[in-house]
């Protein structure tokens, strides 16, 4: 079963994504804080991590910290970042850190599922 971690401080969003992917047959954990997400990543294995870039306030870029955490530990997870406030610098940093997909919110769930499917089809 596909293991997913969804990180967003808006619980209505994590719940919607969790419900959608659970119906598709995935096991989905959710987290609202960077530290909570990192604690899960340090102790559990995930195939896909979907994270909002901003978790704590208007200036936050915690999603990039989570991406960095995954890459530094060489965790075998695809990382999808999403943001309602895209900027060239944030996207450039995410690409530099090795993000697998960078999506602008709102992200239709069907589109998110297509992105995840395509990422998992490509061998690392």
């Amino acid at each position, binding site marked *: 079963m596909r293991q997913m971690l969804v990180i967003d*401080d808006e619980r209505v969003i994590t719940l919607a994504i969790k419900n959608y992917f659970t119906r598709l047959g995935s096991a989905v*954990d959710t*987290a*609202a*804080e960077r*530290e*909570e997400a*990192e*604690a*899960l990543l*340090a*102790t*559990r294995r995930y195939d896909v991590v979907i994270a909002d870039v901003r*978790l*704590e306030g208007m200036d936050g870029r915690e999603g990039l910290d989570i991406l960095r955490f995954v890459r530094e530990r060489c965790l075998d997870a695809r990382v999808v970042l999403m943001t309602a406030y895209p900027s060239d610098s944030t996207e450039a940093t995410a690409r530099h850190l090795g993000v697998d997909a960078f999506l602008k919110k709102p992200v239709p769930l069907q589109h998110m599922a297509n992105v995840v499917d395509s990422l998992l089809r490509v061998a690392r």
Partner: protein
Amino acid sequence: MEFSLIDTIVAPGSLSFLFQPIVHAAGSSYELHAYEALTRGPAGTNVHAADVLFEYVRRKQEEVRVDRLCVAGALRAAVLLDPGARLNLNVHASTLTRDAGFPDYVCAQAAAAGIGAERLVFEIVEYAPGSTGAPFAAALEKLRRHGCAIALDDVGLGNSNYRMILDSRPDYYKVDRFLADGAAADPYRLAIIRSLASLAGAVGATVVAEGVEAEEDVAALRSAGISLFQGFFFGRPKPAAEQAAGPWMSKQTMSEQKTFEEA
């Protein structure tokens, strides 16, 4: 963020406590030596599992606050347990370093629960090189003056290495399940355990093998000089009331019961 998970963790009644027996091999029988208190986080959250809980707590740098809550809660729950058994409590090395009042606090909590400090064993977890020093040594000294014993957790893994053994001079070396599980079938594992038992014995300490699940491993570990065991083979973590109902009994309680029966 308005409400953090840490607020849920530290809310009254959020944490719960299980206890797992540590047994002593005495000839052909086993007797209860201690219980280790194991914390569970708030039900229905990601941090219900202890490994996620403490990873999260460390990332929030809340070890001191949560360690105090865990120790106080475990002591309150442990009043039901066999008074002849020791009680193992986990504490971060960082807590001992940062919280100079921790030794007096826990001993006061133990006294309030009617548990003598000499029954307490503090298992040091998550030692990080450079995080210790004089405050850490002073905390250990204070705990020892209260009559408590010191255990080093996860020996053989990560940072629980020779330096930490030197820094903490533990009374107990807790050998991780990674080494103990499957020891019967692996001469390398057994050789490492034998060397740790020899090292501990040379300085008056004792090794506890954790994660023991198979009878053949128990036999192999005993042949390697191990006499204290913890793991599913001997008992799963359970609430204090269930552990108090049996089947394990300390040597002291057994001898008291015998005297009572003889009388």
